[in-house]
């Protein structure tokens, strides 16, 4: 069966296919290289954050201040309000019990106001329910909901999900009324993965009692999860302010925020450094990390990959004025032609197609068609030849 003729045909087909794929490989590499920064292989283009405070009532002030501390950090490191979904189950700042109206503090002594003057809370009060959270994560919100209430992630988004409240073994309590189980959350994340791959990498942080159980049931890829305490352990509050009258921050989140205060947008601190500050003695519980679903090593992942919205900008040289369509007067309508030798790293992938056009040939599929045609001819030829040979052989037999 494997005559030299057949071998030749087989070899030729394989060669043509290789050339085809290598050409595509070349272009893939160029597009990938455009997205990847030189240092890390994260490959994400935008950052989103979902920050949920699931408890209501004044004595749960610290949960609201946890979520607001994360909100402030994430905003400071560059994620805009349009990419943050903040859910607060109760109003702490303008609560009638609040001695300092319009302000939420996370340390006794009240040095830093987390509420500030520029805040957008997307879901508040009775709107913070398990159903609404799952709808936001999976994208199944009613048609009339505006953009600010939707999680518009795509397959190049890094999503940071932070949840705080009262919880227990594999559940999180919402507003003292209903619970969300770890299975619900795992299914929601899986739906995010299945449905248009709505995240590239997801970082899940939870600060409740027995928090590590909440991420124990996750099964989707590219999720890094961490929690404040393991099964059977409580997470404790950290500080109490005597004028506000309640605890103002939780221990785990306090140490997280303290670490993140030392980070700015250009920082190269990795997630491994973040997890290295876990000290069961000072945090008074055993925080945990789950990395088995995460593909990259932790010392390669920057903290700003999840907490910040860092845009890597290369300044190009002044654009070539010969491209001005109207020289003397009138507006310049031609945009500067992107110089392929100096790729401009931007967060949105708007120039990808044009770059590919400049750098490589347009995939015309001519080689594929030629290979197919030649293969077809060869097959036809061998069939005809084979037919004549078999007829002659049968004749001989007879």
């Amino acid at each position, binding site marked *: 069966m494997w005559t030299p003729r057949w071998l030749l045909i087989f070899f030729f087909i394989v060669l043509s296919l290789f050339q085809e794929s290598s050409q595509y490989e070349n272009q893939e590499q160029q597009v990938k290289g455009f997205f990847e920064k030189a240092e890390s292989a994260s490959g994400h283009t935008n950052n989103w954050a979902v920050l949920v405070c699931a408890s209501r009532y004044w004595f749960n002030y610290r949960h609201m201040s946890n979520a607001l501390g994360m909100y402030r950090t994430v905003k400071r490191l560059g994620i805009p309000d349009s990419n943050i979904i903040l859910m607060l189950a109760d*109003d702490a700042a*303008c609560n009638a019990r609040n001695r300092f109206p*319009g302000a939420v503090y996370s340390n006794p002594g009240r040095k830093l106001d987390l509420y500030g*003057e520029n805040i*957008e809370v997307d879901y*508040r009060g009775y709107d913070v329910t398990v159903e609404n959270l799952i709808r936001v994560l999976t994208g199944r919100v009613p048609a*009339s909901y505006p*953009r600010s209430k939707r999680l518009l992630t795509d397959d190049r988004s890094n999503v940071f999900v932070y949840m705080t409240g009262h919880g227990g073994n594999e559940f999180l309590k919402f507003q003292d009324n209903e619970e969300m189980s770890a299975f619900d959350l795992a299914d929601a994340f899986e739906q995010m993965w299945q449905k248009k791959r709505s995240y590239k990498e997801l970082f899940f942080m939870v600060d409740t009692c027995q928090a590590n159980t909440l991420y124990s049931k996750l099964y989707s890829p590219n999720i890094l999860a961490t929690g404040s305490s393991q099964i059977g352990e409580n997470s404790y509050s950290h500080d109490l302010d005597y004028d506000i009258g309640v605890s103002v921050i939780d221990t785990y989140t306090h140490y997280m925020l303290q670490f993140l205060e030392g980070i700015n947008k250009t920082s190269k601190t990795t997630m491994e450094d973040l997890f290295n500050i876990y000290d069961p003695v000072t945090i008074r519980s055993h925080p945990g990390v789950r990395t088995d679903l995460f593909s990259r090593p932790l010392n390669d992942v920057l903290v700003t990959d999840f907490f910040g919205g860092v845009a890597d900008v290369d300044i190009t040289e002044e654009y070539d004025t010969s491209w001005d369509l109207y020289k003397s007067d009138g507006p310049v309508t031609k945009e500067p032609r992107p110089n392929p030798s100096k790729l401009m790293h931007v967060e949105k992938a708007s120039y990808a197609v044009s770059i590919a056009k400049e750098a490589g040939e347009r995939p015309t599929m001519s080689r594929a068609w030629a290979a197919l045609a030649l293969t077809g001819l060869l097959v036809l030829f061998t069939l005809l030849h084979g037919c004549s040979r078999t007829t002659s052989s049968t004749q001989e037999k007879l």
Partner: protein
Amino acid sequence: MNNEQFEEELHVRPLQDGRVYTNFVFKILLKNAVPRSANTLGSEDEAQHYTVFPLALGQIIREYAVTELHLSLNAGKWDYASWGYPDNPSVGSGAELWAWMGEGDEKRVSISFDARWQGLRNALAGLFCASLGELDERRTTSPVYAFQPDGDLPAESMNLAYAFHPSENICTENLTPFIKLLPCKSRSGIASLLNPHRLFDADWHGMSIRVLWRADEGVEVQLGVQAVFDPIRLRGQQKRDWDFPHIFDRTITRACPVAYSSTIRVDLPLSGPYTLTPDPITAGNGTAVFDVMSANKPLDVSLLYLNEAHFTYPVDPSPQTDLSIARSHTGTSQAHGRFHVTLTNSLNHPQRVAYLETPPWIIKFYLHTLTVTVDQDPRPRKDIIQKLTYIPTSSNLPTLFEPTLILPPNSTVHLTLDFDKTFLRYTEHPPDAQRGWDLPPAVLIPLSSNGSSAPPSLPRMYTNTLLVDLATPDFSMPYNVIIMTCTLIAMFFGNVFNLLTREFIAIKVA
């Protein structure tokens, strides 16, 4: 920018109990614009180009073909007796949304009125970070006399949708997008005085968004913030002197360059020597006017009361309004109660008013128990209520109770009405069920007398919200039932199984 005009004004009025009423009004007029007709919703809208007119709000108005829109978010109880009438009459505590929208010809328009109302609510909820999605059919009504349009309406058939959510609160996240709608944001002009840490400390505060159409001018957006500050409490001493850094913790450092006019009006106190600094542009008719554009910056208006070591509250304060209304509910049961409304007319002539009550479905009125008495006379009167518009509650729709009354001169009318409280299903209770349910405020609308075409001279008034205590179940009951049933079944089954299947075999004991 010749077809858009932005004007801003701050009105400051000292009140008789030492407090200071401030009203910020930002008006943006889109000249010669016409609101989108509901019949054009099937086709694409013409392009809109705005410079200072807020784009986010303009897009929402055109998307749902809204002619007139009023949204207000308030906190506190407006004290009509001490403070008089506010400049903007919408002072009900909570979130109030009402809109006049065209009905839309059903054959040409694919989207129904209710769907547009829902879209409008959700769009405004997203824009202003408020839970306005709760204003669905459970809280929406269409009053007859109340909420007549402030502007003009086009010739097509228009409907009013009115909804009130008394449990809504207002905080910095509502003020942030509000300020972002202004052309100068809070960087310059009068809006730079809007400091959330002081605004939400005020004894009464609220913000309002009004969109109206005037046929001869165009579409106007009025963004307003009203607040009643207490300089005595802020200072800690009993002196009612105030200035901008004292009440707002801010001064005006720059004027808004795109403003057509930017003025501050201060109502001068009626009595006592006082000093008003800086010097106003005009001072007459009891009002001093400052022009922010031409004044020396930083602009800090201050009013000092001379010869007043400390302020004494008026012993017998005269009511500042001619009409007054108070509403309460009585009864100790969790199954029924009674509304008691007191309407006082201090004018010397009878006044025709409408009274609007829109409680949610948890309250069921018994209309035959409606009793009207005047002053101390216990005999029920049949001549006070002229007309009654009444749509009782059904399934989860609210009641609409809107009688028209003639209040006799110099008298007090008492209305009482019995109601039943619903026993809600287990899942219908809010998360904090033991708190109770808020009832929206009742509205008193003075009307012009019968046959007169002149508009009424007095603005509408709101009562306080009421908190109604409903019977709550024991929310741990299902868990207890399951545990007990399982225990009983296990014990019963265990014993019966053993009895039926256990065999006693004698073992030889040697």
